[in-house]
């Protein structure tokens, strides 16, 4: 079985711009991984995501060098509409993704474009709305929904296409923390239940890292850290313009006091347990 993503020696430069935005990026993602991708503004994370579904080079043009295969397809040689069947893409602002008069029509849109028969479309729309917990909203207009609900519908419309990989570029930027957490929980569920490969671009490491099997940090167009979240959190992320969650900062302070931890806890539950162990 081919890997979900395979990138080797990837360089990219936008049309008319000086300098590479991606510099020698190497990455292999197995199917079913939950990858959290982070980095300072302008580090190249959004650009890399655009390569995953073929927006680069097919829409943005520019100069792409190196190898990139997603879901077994050579991105460079595969048209966007074909990549879209394999790679679902979710943007920051769900308003840029929803345009129909009802939720149901929005979720069905991609399927109708494929010329799928009505029964199959209905089955898939029902399933996708069910999975994201929005079944009772099928006849609502997108503008009647909250930001979090809209983002769920955007996810449903991508899921209905039955992709192998879902790429989300800061999907919670406009959402409050509680709603953001619910989106991450949904992604966790999709990852576990459907084996969907998740690539999540996020600044909110405090809420998202507990769900990720892997944390990748980019800086100046390169991947600078790549590993499971507790391991990556041993590094000083501030150097790369990334906010370290306070829980992690607290444990790093404990390490400076001479304590060592096999694995830095990512949730307050785990953290409380570890604290109890070392204080009693």
């Amino acid at each position, binding site marked *: 079985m081919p890997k979900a993503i395979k990138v080797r020696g990837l360089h990219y430069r936008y049309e008319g711009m000086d300098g590479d935005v991606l510099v020698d990026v190497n990455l292999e993602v197995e199917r079913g991984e939950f990858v959290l991708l982070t980095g300072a503004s302008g580090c190249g994370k959004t650009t890399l995501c655009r390569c995953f579904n073929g927006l680069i080079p097919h829409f943005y043009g520019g100069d792409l060098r190196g190898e990139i295969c997603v879901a077994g397809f050579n991105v460079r040689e595969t048209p966007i509409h074909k990549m879209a069947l394999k790679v679902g893409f979710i943007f920051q602002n769900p308003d840029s993704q929803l345009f129909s008069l009802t939720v149901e029509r929005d979720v069905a849109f991609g399927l109708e474009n494929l010329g799928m028969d009505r029964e199959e479309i209905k089955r898939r729309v029902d399933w996708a709305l069910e999975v994201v917990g929005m079944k009772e909203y099928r006849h609502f207009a997108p503008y009647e929904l909250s930001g979090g609900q809209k983002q769920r519908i955007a996810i449903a419309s991508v899921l209905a296409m039955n992709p192998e990989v879902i790429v989300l570029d800061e999907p919670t930027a406009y959402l409050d923390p509680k709603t953001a957490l619910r989106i991450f929980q949904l992604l966790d569920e999709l990852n576990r239940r459907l084996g969907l490969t998740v690539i999540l671009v996020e600044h909110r490491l405090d809420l998202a890292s507990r769900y990720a099997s892997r944390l990748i940090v980019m800086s100046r167009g390169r991947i600078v850290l790549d590993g499971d979240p507790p391991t990556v959190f041993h590094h000083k992320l501030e150097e790369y313009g990334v906010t370290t969650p306070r829980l992690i900062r607290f444990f790093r302070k404990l390490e400076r006091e001479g304590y060592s931890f096999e694995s830095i806890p990512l949730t307050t539950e785990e*953290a409380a347990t570890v604290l109890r162990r070392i*204080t009693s």
Partner: protein
Amino acid sequence: MIEVLDVYYTYPNGFTALKGVSLTIDRGECIAIMGENGAGKTTLIKHFNGLLKPTRGAVLVDGSNTMDLSVAQLSRKVGLVFQNPEHQFFSETVEDEVAFALKNFGFQGDEIKQRVDQVLERMGLTHYRQSSPFNLSGGEKKRLAIASVVVFNPDYLILDEPTIGQDYLQKREIIGIIRSFLKEGKAVVIVTHDLEFVVDLRPRIILMSQGRIILDDTADKALSNLKLLDEASLLPPQIVELAYKFFNSPSLEGVLDEDDLMKIIKPLLARRRGQQ
């Protein structure tokens, strides 16, 4: 001083967004207004510069009723940065966008150039000065919106969700700007969901829910009040949650960040070491 006196506001569609809100904002104060979406936060701050006028009650800015002043008059004093920055852009270049208000407020040539240079540098936008505001990334647009208000140095700086799309260093820069305003004796009001940002600033906290203020207190008290945070649909800061789970106590006042927690954990660690 901004005085909000028992303000009600009903939108033309009949939705009442504010239901009897009262507060005062003194110069030199830093205030964070927090609460779930739809709690009335943005509606409230739009009253500060007269964009909205109360349906009932009154808002006074330095003693003058906003009913008697135009938005243009108020804007010189009360600089408001919107949540969605695109709503406030209209110039062709970043530079013109920042200079616009200065020209409007009667600043002259050299002064304009100097101020624009300074603020663009500060917000990391210098190399975009000739770009169109609409070609910037989300985070850059946000910083441009802040720049175009900060540049005319208002007495009250009102920021709606300033940290969206900002990374670690940019957040630090925004905190720096807020602190320098406070130092000059100006007031800063922030509407935000970003609790960890608030933990860094430790402002006075106003929690809103369904058009009302449900809490108005110091950061030390407000952010360790798990029950009220939950009512306002906010997640507690990580360290507050950890302290709660570890000590099994509902409220440890003022334990908000890793340094606060370390201070109270250290004696426990020392005691344990002593026993060994």
